[in-house]
């Protein structure tokens, strides 16, 4: 009967799947997508012989999962897409301290003083624009200028997006809560268009819905890689403006890990020249170390340090305050 056929197929599949779980030495929870992470994992496994099982998911949901699992978590490593998530886990006491030599040599914009996690790659906030409808004279010099009349209804943003929220946290740090709230309300009154995330914003510029968007630097190169005629470009605000915030994708070892040595080795690997080269060459993100070959599409290392505001990554963990502000502004 059909039913027994289906049933036996199901049992067979279950049996096939069972060995998968127990095989690996390390378990990684990755908020980063499979296309980014897989090649690096493969390289690591080849270099060291340590096998890694990866759980792919949404950065935030995996962070919530880790909180729910607590000390019972089977995970050894967490790779998150922004500082907020990592800060949250650090505050909850779920992260293990890393050996100091891992992050000692890194520039201040990439280090966390808590020693609980480290940046694996940098992503700069930029503004994307439509070269067809925006001339260079119109470029905003600072992100604060976007509340001006001339930008009415032309700017896109994503208040629910993690990178945007980290950016707001940085803005609060540097300019205070009041000015940040003022800017948020100003943007809202000026008709800023809400999108769900970064890639839909970039698409929105191409579609003609908005002329400007506040996004991370690496989305556009990815669109361009599959479609060289894509009608969007991007630029930085003036040097040091908060709109140029360099956020990070970070890696951390979990307190609940049962093989801390191997986990730390993975972290070291991510900071090695080979991995950093991959991040900048294939993923269009900024490396955290100097000894890599420049990707011509990106600013070089020193230029990035000039362009970015000086923010302490640890202070970016006050997400609650940011969410409260966004709620006060009626955006969440």
């Amino acid at each position, binding site marked *: 009967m059909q039913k027994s056929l289906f049933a036996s197929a*199901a049992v067979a599949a279950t049996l096939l799947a069972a060995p998968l779980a127990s095989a690996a030495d390390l378990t990684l929870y990755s908020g980063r997508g499979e296309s980014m992470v897989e090649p690096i994992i493969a390289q690591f496994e080849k270099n060291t012989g340590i096998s890694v099982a990866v*759980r792919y*998911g949404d950065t935030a949901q995996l962070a919530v999962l880790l909180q729910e699992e607590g000390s019972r978590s089977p995970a050894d490593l967490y790779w998150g897409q922004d500082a907020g998530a990592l800060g949250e886990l650090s505050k909850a006491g779920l992260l293990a301290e890393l050996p100091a030599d891992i992050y000692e040599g890194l520039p201040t914009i990439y280090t966390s003083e808590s020693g609980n996690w480290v940046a694996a790659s940098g992503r700069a906030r930029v503004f994307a624009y439509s070269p067809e409808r925006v001339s260079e004279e119109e470029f905003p010099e600072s992100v604060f200028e976007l509340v001006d009349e001339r930008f009415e209804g032309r700017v896109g943003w994503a208040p629910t997006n993690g990178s945007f929220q980290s950016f707001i946290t940085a803005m609060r740090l540097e300019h205070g809560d009041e000015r940040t709230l003022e800017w948020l309300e100003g943007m809202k009154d000026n008709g800023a268009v809400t999108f*769900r995330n970064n890639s839909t914003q970039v698409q929105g510029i191409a579609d*003609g819905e908005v002329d400007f968007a506040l996004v991370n630097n690496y989305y556009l190169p990815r669109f361009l890689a599959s479609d060289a005629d894509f009608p969007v470009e991007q630029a930085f605000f003036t040097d040091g403006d908060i709109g140029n915030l360099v956020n990070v994708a970070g890696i951390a070892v979990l307190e609940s890990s049962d093989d801390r040595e191997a986990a730390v080795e993975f972290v070291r690997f991510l900071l090695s020249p080979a991995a950093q080269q991959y991040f900048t060459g294939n993923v269009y993100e900024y490396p955290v170390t100097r000894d890599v070959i420049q990707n011509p599409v990106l600013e070089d290392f020193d230029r990035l340090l000039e362009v970015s505001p000086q923010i302490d990554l640890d202070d970016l963990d006050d997400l609650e305050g940011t969410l409260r502000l966004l709620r006060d502004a009626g955006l969440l």
Partner: protein
Amino acid sequence: MNQTHQTSTPRRAPGFPRLLPRGVPLHILLPSLIAAGAMLVPLVYLGLRAFEADSATLLDLVFRPRNLQLLLNTLALAAGVVALTTLMAFPLAWLVTRTDIRFKKALTVLGVIPLAVPGYVMAYALIGLGGNYGVLAQLTGIQLPRLQGYWGATLALSLYTFPYLFLNLRAALAGLDGNLEESARSLGYSRGETFRRVTLPHLMPALMAGWLVITLYVLGDFGAVALMRYEAFSYAIYTQYSGAFDRVYAAWLALMLLALATCFVMLDSLVVKRKLARIGTGVARPMMPQPLGRARFLAWPYLVALFTASIGLPVMILAYWLLLAPPDLSFFARVPGTLLRSAGAALPAALLAAAFALPIAFLTVRYRSPFAILVERSAYIGYAIPPLALALAMVFFSLRTAPFLYQTLAMLVITWAMASLALALGPIRSALLQTRPSMEEAAHSLGHGPISTFTHVIFPRLRRGILAGVVLVFVLCMKELPITFLLAPTGYTTLAVTVFTRTSEGMLAEAAPFAAAIVVFSSLSVGLLLTKEGK
């Protein structure tokens, strides 16, 4: 002439309501208790988390005016989707069961395939229609305004949920006895009056069941709604979990959603108070198919429009992604393995859900009682609860009671079955309502035990309903996301997870082969099972 009356209720001592009806066999009671008990897990979890709340923050975060606005938005959306899906599903069901339209089987299959389309793919497809750089603009140069907001969300949701209603209506229409309507006509009722007074009341259970499933789905959906930039209540829940990394106030929001869902469930049972069953078919008369005649010129354009929108659009967007930047062949090579993993979990989940839905359906139809109602309602809890909350509840529960089960395939299958039990329950219960208890009683009196009665008497009659239930659950699990993220064994990536991780990083073309696999394979399963239905 046919008669219908209420199924027999057990006699009880006057004045004292009996909680459990007399004589419920163990093989029905036990699974019902297990299912109801399982649904307690997420409730207990949410209660525990909610208990940690601080009252000032609670007022600030949960009971604020904006949440009320989001709630109203969601209700408006649900109303819109219910209306639109009825407009879509009813004519289709009528055409397929009551008229002499050609290619009925093909039309039936096409009417169910949209279930296979993941919500976010449909949303992307609709979005791709408009905009200066959308698919339509690129292919034809026509630039339409972008579909979004309330109408975008309503359309997107309707296009892939109308099959629920279609399946229910089709079963109900096909099961209607022709004698009833013909008698009404012979008594002088016009066509319209016959429809209103005879046909429609008999269709109400099916309509209500379909509406309930769709409404509960709309309450919880986030993906398609967010892409359409419509601010629904799910937005608030998502922000709490994923924005604030918070489980305490998110639990409160989830409980609010469940309360709303329970209201709808209770409303449903209030309206469908009478339980109908046949006691004698007399001379059973299937309805004669009405000739379409000139109405054909209305019917076919309608059908073409419906299927172009619900199936053509997603296919177009997937083809577009694939052709725009063809991904490496290696991606295509990955699809079979991922597909096996998806199906290898979805199929057991579907079978498990159906296995539990059967006894529960019996309980609610043959042994009606407060307990039965409670069990039925608890099945809807699993369906209505935000999947992320359900997954977290299972994480909490299994880590503390059965750690060896944590992040195993078994856990994923069990949780999927819990989330979709209500889906399987619908068709099975509808099928059961159309059968007579006297056949089972006759089998018992002839000495057949429960298993024998089941295989020889019950299963053949319920086969269509059971198959429908299995297919519905299977197709839902093939595209499920949040529960998979949290509970699947690490490394056990499914098609849906792969599609998500690639679209979220903007790699739409890489996602296309996997999304296509979901749609194709689910459609094949649907088609296969529908054709094996045997009618």
